[in-house]
């Protein structure tokens, strides 16, 4: 139960949630809710792992993962943007489809043996910062550093650039965006694909770096759904998404570690002496997701913040009411 180890591993696991959550933030900021994260992450994890097994090239694996999940998200795009189908149901269909495809194509992959993982790095100067250095900058996977970069870049893009302004316009008021001369459909398709690709990257990060291998549905174990919840907690803001993602990563690691020692805070550790209490520990991430959602929803009510105004609504040119 070394807190440094827990936080170190938590940041690594949190990176997965971070990618998926920020991807979903992009899609939802454009007005498209995509509940299919779990399916797209599974596709990403499966294709990254299988390509890496076949070629030995992890980078290629990640690229294929992003393409595969991005391609899958395009289906969601066509159905919800052009065909104006219900985004909730289409997202669920995507979850089924992604799970099914990854199970079918990933058949036998669990026996594929070991791959060389993505490299880990220690950043020379930063690693010597007390406390933060060993947690954030020592022997972390390259994906973790990519996560550090993604957060400020995503925030800057959404809030401080012209394309980011267009992105928000399409999600808040597509009619006005259309009148400004923006192509609502094209932008929505693009950001749905950005979201899908990042979900694929999240999946690839699991299978190539965080908990390497292919364990069918257990590879993600509901992380895609947790990410959907984190978007609401994050209030569609990348910084809060990072905070939520890393906190959840640390929680998952704590759950693993807490059953180890015989005493906990000087008391008999009930999880050590009755291993069946471990099932209650397993519930924690999901219970915390609910708690975090409650916090996020209350805050949104109080501050009168909310989801992008056009989230979940199809845009039909010439129809009033959005």
């Amino acid at each position, binding site marked *: 139960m070394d807190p440094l180890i827990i936080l170190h591993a938590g940041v690594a696991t949190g990176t997965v949630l971070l990618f998926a959550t920020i991807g979903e933030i992009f899609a939802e900021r454009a007005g498209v809710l995509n509940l299919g994260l779990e399916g797209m992450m599974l596709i990403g994890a499966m294709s990254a792992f299988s390509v890496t097994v076949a070629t030995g090239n992890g980078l290629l694996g990640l690229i294929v993962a992003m393409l595969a999940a991005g391609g899958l998200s395009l289906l969601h795009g066509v159905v919800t943007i052009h065909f104006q189908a219900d985004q909730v149901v289409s997202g669920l269909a995507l979850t*089924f489809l992604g799970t099914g495809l990854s*199970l079918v194509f990933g058949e036998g992959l669990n026996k594929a043996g070991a791959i060389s993982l993505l490299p880990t790095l220690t950043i020379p100067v930063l690693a010597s910062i007390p406390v933060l250095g060993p947690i954030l900058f020592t022997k972390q996977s390259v994906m973790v550093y990519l996560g550090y970069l993604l957060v400020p870049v995503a925030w800057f893009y959404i809030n401080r650039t012209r394309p980011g302004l267009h992105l928000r316009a399409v999600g808040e008021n597509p009619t006005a965006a259309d009148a400004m001369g923006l192509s609502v459909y094209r932008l929505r398709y693009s950001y749905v694909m950005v979201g899908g690709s990042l979900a694929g990257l999240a999946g690839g990060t699991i299978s190539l770096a965080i908990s390497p291998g292919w364990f069918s549905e257990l590879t993600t174990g509901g992380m895609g759904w947790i990410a959907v919840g984190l978007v609401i907690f994050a209030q569609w803001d990348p910084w809060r998404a990072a905070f939520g993602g890393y906190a959840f990563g640390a929680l998952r690691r704590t759950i693993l570690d807490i059953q180890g020692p015989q005493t906990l805070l000087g008391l008999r550790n009930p999880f050590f002496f009755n291993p069946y209490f471990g099932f209650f520990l397993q519930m924690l991430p999901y219970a915390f997701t609910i708690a975090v*959602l409650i916090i996020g929803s209350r805050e949104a009510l109080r501050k009168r913040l909310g989801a992008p105004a056009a989230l979940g609504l199809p845009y039909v040119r010439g129809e009033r009411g959005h």
Partner: protein
Amino acid sequence: MTGSDSAESRLPGGIRLPFEIQVEPRLHVPRWLSPLISVIAILVALLLGALVLALVGGDPVRAYAHIAGAAFGSLGVFSDTLVKATPLIMTGLACSVAFQMKLWNIGAEGQFYMGALGASIVILAGVVPADAPRLVAIPIMLVAGVVFGAAWGLVPGWLKARLRVNEIITSLMLNYIAIALVNYFIFGVWSEGGFQMTRTFQQAAWLPRLSDLAEQFPILRGLTTHFGLVFAVVAAVIVWYILFRSLWGYEIRLIGDNPRAAKYAGINITRNTVFVMMLSGGIAGLGGMSEIAGVVHRLQGSISPGYGFTGIIIAWLAKLNPLVVLPVSVLFGGLILAGREIQPAGVPRLIQGIILFMLIASEVFLRYRIRLVRRP
């Protein structure tokens, strides 16, 4: 997509087609169109599924023939198909009733597990005396299953109604929690000889099977269809009556169609949200109860190969009509029964996903008329 959009007739690269594709909103939808489109969507989905099967080196024709034979080929397997259809009817009903109000309960899986847990608790914790007759034991199990399922639906319903917490995610998270809770009980509390299952219930807690009547009617020998199917059919009729013949159902459907109008009409959305989620959870819980009382006769892990999720697809395919849920569930029961033996193992899930996708994509043809018009 707008009315008569001639720009769409030009392919990328500026190639001009000899005809124009016109897309116009439909003002009138003929009654036969919706079922026809659903059937076509399913056929296309099966075709796409075959394509994927062929891609991974399977033999789609043999796979589908196998599914048909192993699900509907004889009285015996058809009886097994009905056994699989029974829980699907209940989860399909649970989803239908919630979706009618646009409440996205995707927690039927967890509510199903909780129903099974509730029905087991009354037996294993001695609420039902060991020598109680069937007529006492079964109703108590039934009530316990419904109550536990409803409680599991109450949580996301209350959170949605009171705190506006997204019910999609809370109901889904509760699935994982329910399964972990059931695991705690079967591993930690009631484990039978170290196995991940409880002891077998006394016979009074078993739902009667068709094969119980084999002495009078020899043709029924070996048929496993159990009384849960009767529960399911009765539940379907009741839910249909509530939704389409009662004032409450009118309120539910109005809230789903137009929440603003419902509010102005003085309908209490908060209370309906809680009650509909409880009804939905209760029906799914009944499914869990009927599964353990009718099939496995004890509480054990993996009692559901995703019945709660398949219920979503069934509800959508049945257009949220409880009576249509019945035949659709039989088809999916066959798919699940026969799919167990098909390799790779993900195929049934894949086909379900493609079917749902095709269904929602095909709805565009209900809203729009797409015509090819010759260029002058």
